[in-house]
């Protein structure tokens, strides 16, 4: 609440002789402000910028100085970058940051489709995936999904050739925030969520059968 007043103070008011009238916030409070600004800024911030953003009369340089001392020996440090200030990880702890640097890429369309088919139809063979997608599935796609540990080999199908089947993994469920593959929305829900606009082509079974069909698949995978 108190800061709201401070905010009001920064607004150019009628009283142009303001400086003497308005009390700058206590230095401790200014230090908090600098801390928040440096933390949230994507770029290092100059003292001039700090002063411009803080309430009138604040002394950015002094506040930075206090903050810098406060962080001495801590896990992060207030460092000078050119003419500006930033908060950075303490150099000796850089080894902890390795996880932050993973580069994320979107899965290819083929991989997403293949993954979706495995999730909805598991256990499913490669031939079945190809049948559903209508195009062949490259070895790289399957390999990638296996490597990501989103799919794994299931039981062999007891049909000629005894083809291997694929099922999704716990890792997959974790990644997509699902408690079980049963919780994947069915076609009905996809439609009501607006993801499935088209009407089912003639000859496709009624939606009611969907859930059961899926159940059977899943039951099979469980046994």
């Amino acid at each position, binding site marked *: 609440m108190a800061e709201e007043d401070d905010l009001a103070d920064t607004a150019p008011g009628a009283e142009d002789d303001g400086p003497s009238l308005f009390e700058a916030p206590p230095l401790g409070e200014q230090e908090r402000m600098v801390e928040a600004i440096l933390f949230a800024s994507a770029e290092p911030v100059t003292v001039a910028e700090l002063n411009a953003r803080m309430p009138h009369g604040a002394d950015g340089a002094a506040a930075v100085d206090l903050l810098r001392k406060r962080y001495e020996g801590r896990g992060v440090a207030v460092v000078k970058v050119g003419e500006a200030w930033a908060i950075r990880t303490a150099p000796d702890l850089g080894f902890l940051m390795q996880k932050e640097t993973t580069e994320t890429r979107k*899965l290819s369309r083929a991989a997403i489709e293949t993954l979706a088919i495995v999730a909805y139809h598991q256990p499913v063979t490669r031939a079945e995936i190809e049948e559903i997608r209508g195009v062949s599935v490259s070895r790289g796609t399957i390999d990638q999904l296996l490597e990501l540990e989103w799919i794994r080999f299931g039981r062999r199908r007891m049909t000629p050739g005894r083809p291997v089947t694929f099922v999704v993994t716990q890792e997959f469920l974790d990644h997509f925030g699902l408690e079980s593959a049963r919780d994947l929305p069915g076609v009905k829900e996809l439609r009501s969520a607006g993801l499935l606009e088209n009407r089912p082509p003639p000859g496709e079974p009624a939606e009611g059968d969907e859930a059961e069909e899926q159940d059977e698949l899943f039951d099979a995978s469980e046994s």
Partner: protein
Amino acid sequence: MTPSSTETDATVVSLDARLEAEALIVDVDGFEGPLDLLLTLSRTQKVDLRKISVLALAEQYLEFIKQAKELRIELAADYLVMAAWLAFLKSRLLLPPDPADEGPSGEELAAHLAFQLERLEAMRDVAARLMARDQKGRDFFVRGVPEDVTRLRKVKYTATLLDLMQAYAQIRTKDEFRPYVMDRESILSMEEALESMRHVIGFAGEWTYLATYLPEGWRLEPARRRSATAATFAAALELVKAGKAEIRQTASFDPIQLRCRRDG
């Protein structure tokens, strides 16, 4: 209660009453369904929702619908369904209970409606309180520069559940799509072959050609014969493995022969 002037015949209502009624009705768009309308109407009673007169509320609602009809405003079916229900509720509340009737009493129905209104109002209230909370990116902020100190290049592939569902939905709506069924018409499974062999193998004391084990109806059409031959051969191997039969072939590409093992 509703302004009494609006209850008079539509042709003689005063201009004021008419304007007032129109103002209400134009607002119908602003209502999110009949329950919302009821909640708004209930506020005119200026009492705690727990003490509300459901009877009076039902009358207000029915009056509202009547006006809408007089003004030829088209109402969504939901509003009319609610009106029919409230008319029913009203009669239940006014008439003495019929001892033969098993259904819930008017009071029970009224209490439930009051509960629904109270619950909706409560959700409105907490929704407002929720949105008034400090919000990320508006009132508090995350680190401006998530740090990259040591560059350990590791590619991580991601996809969201939405991607997954959309991809699946797209496949499912392809025109040529048909639900997946294994084309089993011309395929004999090994289990089926094994099943049919079990019945006859006991009689094969002498070497018999494998081809004679092909089930009825699987011997002529080439695709079916191929599948049946493969399945029967696999089944024969299973029987040999189980010690129930012996198998032989005099030379490469010669016919395969099979006989029962007596000691098996």
